[in-house]
């Protein structure tokens, strides 16, 4: 049978404003490929983003989407899931967006286990505002507001997502189209909060790491280390090791699915309560609660 949608059907008419050589082009391509592979109706997709170079992703897609405020993609995505659980919701933003200003929303969304696929394009900096340290930047990083070097250790987003009870925690690499597609596809299949960190160096402001320099270092922990994502202890251990890729050495960088488990989603719990109140009460009957 002819597929109904081809990859191009998921691309909007907008030309991305990313720099030449930006790793986000790859993420965009991977997303459209996966959407086409799964033949999700573009009008049943809601791609929500924040603000940043990465968050422009929404605008490049021909799905429904909300390009929201810096750090606030998750609450908006949650609203749309709560009233329409039939929508496939993807949240795409940057490390600054999710983990600096937006980290509170991240914790709560993950813990409540909303069913959505959350993609953090992690270039370990604020790129759009022209290079400042983000929570994932390495110690000593010289961003424009930290000229003497960043003074705190990078946030390990995988460990953190596991600590926040995300039910699917994974990492992929913008330089590997296939790995991205596999990971995003699994994230979409997962019922619950699927977190995907995409290692996606900034082609303009990162003076050390590039897609090309990082590429040989990627190691899929599921395939090469037979890591079992159902094993929480192993997941945490693997995440702790994955802390950080340092551009100055050539240590392997683990990618793959670190952790996955199955827990009822927030939406499912709501559906249960709704079932218990199946008959929709009329306005008049609600009013009775207040009669004299």
């Amino acid at each position, binding site marked *: 049978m002819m597929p109904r949608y081809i990859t191009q059907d998921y691309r*909007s*008419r*907008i030309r991305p404003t990313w720099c030449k050589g930006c790793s986000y082009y790859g993420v965009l391509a991977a997303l459209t490929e996966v959407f086409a592979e799964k033949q999700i109706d*573009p*009008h*049943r*997709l*809601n*791609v*929500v983003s924040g*603000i940043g170079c990465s968050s422009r992703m*929404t*605008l490049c*897609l*021909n*799905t*429904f*989407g*909300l*390009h*929201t*405020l810096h750090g*606030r993609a*998750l*609450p*908006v*995505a*949650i*609203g*749309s*899931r*709560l*009233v*329409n659980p*039939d*929508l496939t919701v993807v949240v795409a933003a940057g490390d600054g967006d999710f983990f600096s200003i937006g980290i*509170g*929303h991240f914790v*709560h969304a993950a813990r409540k286990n909303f069913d959505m696929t959350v993609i953090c394009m992690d270039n370990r900096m604020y790129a759009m505002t022209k290079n400042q340290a983000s929570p994932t930047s390495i110690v000593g990083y010289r961003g424009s507001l930290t000229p003497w070097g960043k003074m705190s250790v990078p946030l390990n987003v995988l460990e953190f997502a596991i600590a926040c009870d995300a039910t699917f925690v994974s990492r992929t690499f913008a330089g590997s189209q296939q790995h991205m597609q596999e990971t995003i596809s699994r994230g979409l299949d997962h019922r619950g909060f699927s977190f995907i960190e995409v290692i996606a160096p900034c082609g303009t402001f990162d003076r050390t790491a590039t897609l090309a320099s990082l590429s040989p270092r990627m190691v899929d922990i599921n395939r090469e280390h037979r890591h079992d994502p159902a094993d929480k202890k192993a997941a945490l251990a693997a995440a702790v090791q994955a802390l950080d890729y340092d551009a100055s050495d050539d240590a392997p960088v683990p990618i793959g699915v670190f952790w996955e488990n199955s827990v009822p989603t927030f939406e499912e719990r*709501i559906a249960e*309560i*709704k079932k218990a*109140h199946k008959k*929709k*009460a009329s*306005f008049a009957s*609600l*009013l009775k*609660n*207040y*009669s*004299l």
Partner: protein
Amino acid sequence: MSAGDILMKASAHEGFDATVVKSFPSNIRGGYSQSLVTIAEKPAVSPIGDCAILFALSSNAFLLDTLHLTPRTLILVETTAHADGQGRDRFKQLSAAGQTIFSVPVLQLARETAGSSAIRSTVALGILGELLGMGGDQLRAAVAWRFREKGTGLIELNRIALDAGILWARQHIDKKYWLTVPRRRARTDREDRFMLEGNQAVALGAIAAGCTFYTSYPITPATGVGETLSRLMTAHGGVAYQAEDEIAALGAAIGASFAGVKTMTATSGPGLSLMQEFLGYASMVELPVVVVDVQRAGPSTGMPTKHSQDDLFAAIFGGHGEGQRIVIAPATVEECFSATVTAFNCAEHYQCPVIVLSDSTLGMMKRVIAKSALESPVIINRDIFTGSDDTPTPWLRYRLTDSGTNPLTIPGVSSVTYRATGIEHNEDSTPATTPFERCAQMEKRFRKLRRIEMEMDNPVLWDLEPADTVPLDACLCSWGLTASITREAIASLRGEGFRIAAVYPRLLFPVCTEAFNRWADLCTLQIVVEANFTGQFCALLRMSTRARPHPLTVSRGEPFTPPEIAAGIRSIINKEAAA
């Protein structure tokens, strides 16, 4: 706090119009709380008026409440509350001044009869009921209702306490001090009358308007809206969601609106401040959303349970840049219902955020309301485009229409997608920053606001003198709860012979320029009454109309009283006449 409610219920059963206004401190324990019960034959205009009977159960209440008295107020005070210190002095002082004042051993009666001091308010209720000439039956029924879930033992104890109060009043207070409220037969239409707080009326208004998603973060005094909707929403097939903060609450409401449903969130001042960025986003992406701000006295944490109308400017102008917002204020509990319905209608129709400005007093005020006030309001739903074979490409979500609005497409429903963005954009929602595109979209968005005064039903309420009484002494304006209180003040001033024309806006913003220009033309002396420090609506009128009104304001955490407003107006009129 429940004694006031019981008295209200009993009076309502007897067929009276009744209102309870509550006031209490923001901490859980301590401080003094107050219930102000108004019982009237015809629906009362103002929920606040001269105090006929003051019953003070603590020395704190005695000291503070005896500051607002008329010479005719009958004072009852718990014996121990004036036993010593300032209480004793005040008692002497009042007696010496000829005020009618009785010392009542409420606490002792409660302990003696029911064996518990906790039940003293029921004793007080018995005394009050008797002084009002109420039959004990209604009161007993109301008490039974109040404690219906607490078991027959407690009900019985309360009955005993009630009777002790009734008896004490008969024995100790001369009939001449009793209030001769004309008796009437108990009404039988209980089914068609409801007892609602302002916050509950807002919640019911949302349900009636078709809201199916409510989300909020707890905050006094708005939590009542959420408490009501959290229960009702589920029964009504919708979803209520407690968010992690106010930013997330409004974000979720916008996301749900994008997904196609009517959404609301309620908060108070601090939450409104936090919502400013998302309010701007909603106006930029042109999505309907209703935000209820149950105002409390600011700034900052301020006085969390206290009355104020000081968020008007934050509601209109609080966000960076220039977005479109509509601001509506109810003046009564009934209007809490209708204003909320109107807010949803406006949000859907104009596709922008609509803010309902209630306040702590109105939100927690209880009133008896007739069914007719809650029935079949006009409902407007958003214009949805589901897509068609010949849908123009690209889809112009923000087409430059004369009206300024366009149909919405909805994920899962419409085949035509678009991406909403808070970046300035062109007609098809692509980011666009040329001066031409920018100006076109700014003008388009602001066009929406120009139509409201014409299109909305009764955006202002007129209360004019008969045509032949001109020239007027003054033109009055007031909004929100203060409008209700001002109406009573004006009635009494008219009784004194002043000629006053008044206008009470429900639509606060955009300002009804036509209406207020007409109003300003009626008389050169214009006065705006409101409960804030800087006279915000007054300033708004100066800035957007021909009017040059005087502010008459108070910002003390308590509403104006009608005599205060009357005195204020009288003094401005006299001063102007002298000038």
